[in-house]
């Protein structure tokens, strides 16, 4: 175990190495570049490889190619680059390629506010690529959590054969705090399921009980076809409407079956509360402080911190909002997660947003001003 001071982006790079990442492709963009810089230094030392591609589209394509050889892979970006990655994030969803995408959010749209913070990509992280698809999105609110969730992102992507997005923000990415790095053998690492059948019997997209087909490495003797076209169990394109529905149902099923592993939240004072704050990322740090201040004033506030943003934790929110008078959703955008909260709450109690979208961090006073009026 080591204790040291580290920047969020550095912690992300170190988490990736511990998780087993051995290939990174990226394109520089503020405020994410330190991740690429750190990995250009670390990867060659552990037998891994780093490449700076010509753009984010190529970076995303390169990590998908590398993942198919059996390698754990990652890319990192922000706003404009995240938009460019969407094309091949969709490919990774369609072809079920394990990979990790880091988005250190900045303000948008377009070039927006490169050096300032935001949580404006909450919806894009879920729906950025076209078409029905499933994806996992995690959100850290500290440097320690960045380290840990980067590892979790790799584990979930390997386990569920899916891209996983770590949706951080400029504050968490650029802050320096104390981190405790565990001994590598204390860290739980999950590797993708490999086929147990012979190459002749291998179906690259087999309908298994858990909905997750075993994945063979390119070059290992299993010669199969990977495509972004909708395909059947063999991996070849199909226009058969039964097959199209079947594979889409399987994608949905594997996520629903995996919810126990995938959905991560943290509850503070939710056993005994009148008001619930639901927050994520750097806003959740601020919300923690607000709950403490409110409690000191005798107001019964609780916090649900969303660590997994997508799939959205419907059941947990539905349960917690049964016993409160009101829900407060602070976020650094004009109101994105609040739409989901409102959908889940379904009008049974009021849901109010606290929104900052001026590039500055959410402050406790921003939330306190709202709750003092309650």
């Amino acid at each position, binding site marked *: 175990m080591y204790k040291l001071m580290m920047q969020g982006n550095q912690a992300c790079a170190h988490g990736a190495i511990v998780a087993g990442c051995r290939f990174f492709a990226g394109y520089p963009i503020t405020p994410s570049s330190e991740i690429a810089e750190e990995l250009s230094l670390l990867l060659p*030392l552990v037998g891994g490889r780093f490449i700076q591609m010509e753009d984010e589209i190529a970076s995303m*394509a390169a990590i998908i*190619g590398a993942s*198919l*050889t059996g390698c754990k892979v990652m890319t990192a970006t922000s706003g404009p680059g995240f938009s460019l990655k969407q*094309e*091949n994030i969709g490919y990774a969803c369609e072809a079920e390629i394990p990979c990790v995408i880091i988005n250190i959010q900045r303000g948008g749209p377009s070039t927006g506010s490169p050096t300032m913070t935001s949580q404006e990509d909450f919806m894009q992280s879920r729906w950025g690529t076209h078409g029905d698809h499933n994806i996992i999105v995690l959100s850290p609110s500290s440097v320690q959590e960045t380290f840990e969730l980067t590892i979790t992102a790799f584990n979930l992507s390997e386990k569920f054969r899916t891209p996983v997005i770590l949706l951080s923000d400029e504050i968490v990415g650029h802050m320096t705090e104390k981190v405790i790095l565990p001994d590598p053998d204390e860290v739980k690492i999950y590797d993708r399921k490999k086929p147990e059948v012979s190459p002749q019997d291998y179906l690259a997209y087999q309908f298994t009980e858990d909905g997750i087909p075993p994945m063979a490495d390119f070059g290992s003797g299993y010669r199969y076809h990977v495509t972004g076209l909708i395909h059947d169990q063999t991996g070849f394109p199909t226009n058969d409407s039964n097959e199209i529905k079947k594979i889409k149902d399987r994608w949905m099923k594997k996520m629903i079956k995996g919810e126990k592993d995938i959905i991560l939240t943290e509850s503070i004072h939710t056993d005994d509360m009148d008001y619930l704050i639901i927050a994520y990322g750097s806003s959740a740090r601020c919300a923690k402080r607000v709950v403490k201040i409110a409690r000191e004033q005798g107001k019964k506030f609780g916090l649900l911190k969303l660590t997994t943003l997508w799939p959205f934790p419907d059941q947990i929110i539905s349960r917690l909002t049964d016993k409160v008078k009101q829900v407060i959703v602070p976020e650094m955008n004009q109101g994105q997660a609040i739409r989901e909260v409102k959908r889940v709450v379904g009008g049974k109690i009021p849901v109010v947003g606290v929104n900052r979208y001026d590039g500055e961090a959410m402050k406790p006073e921003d939330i306190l001003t709202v709750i003092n009026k309650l």
Partner: protein
Amino acid sequence: MMQDIIHQYLRPSKKFPHVWCPGCGDGIVLSAIVRAIHSLGKSKNETVLVSGIGCSSRAPVYVDFPALHGTHGRALAFATGIKMANPELTVVVITGDGDGLAIGGNHFIHACRRNIDITAVVFNNSIYGMTGGQYSPTMKVNDYGATAPYGNIERPFDVCDLASAAGANFVARATAYHAIMLEKFIKMGIAKKGLSIIDVITPCPTLYSFYNKAGKNIDMMESIRDRTITIQKAEQLSDAEKEDKIVVGIFANRDFPEYTGIYSDLMERAKRSVKDEELL
């Protein structure tokens, strides 16, 4: 004999009939790729085909190799990741002129610049086949296409000039008519360490011909044959005389250092420069 070889490489699992029109040149080019791989004694397991989107990019579905049919224009970027993560694999990219030179143009020049050990075969029919005959970046001025009803006004890329200038180690052009020459160039390209570009002039007797009244496959093949000249011959002609010609031959054959090899050296250097304790 040729057929025996091809049959060894067709996927045992279905996938026929293929998507190509009767008379399309794409099958000839795919056949040359397979024969080149075969004659180099490359193992099926360790040869990966990577393609983008287009009629030509459908090729990997039919032959028995590990294959990645990617997104439009990105084949070289996917291939770069595969080759970087496992430099032992032989990586062959199949791309079209639209796929490789329009939407994929940036990846094309940067793959050449890095000189990574990949062989890319450009199925160059100077039209967008899959989407219905729109003009492509290799279409000649004044040819017609679905989006060039008054004639194409854009100057075409010369794929070989572009690849040579961008730094690829091996650059050659052949045609679907000259299948033996084509096989030889692909073979040389795969054997070469570094990036190899093989530009293949191939007929689209369905759409190119529809818009340009180029006749049936046989007419297009005869036209390709009649217009083909060697690099040596081309050197004696004026620009005006070369206008309509297809210049075949080897445009670059050199030995700039190859990217994955340079990276392996970097890994050694990095390890020597840092002590293990400093790692984590």
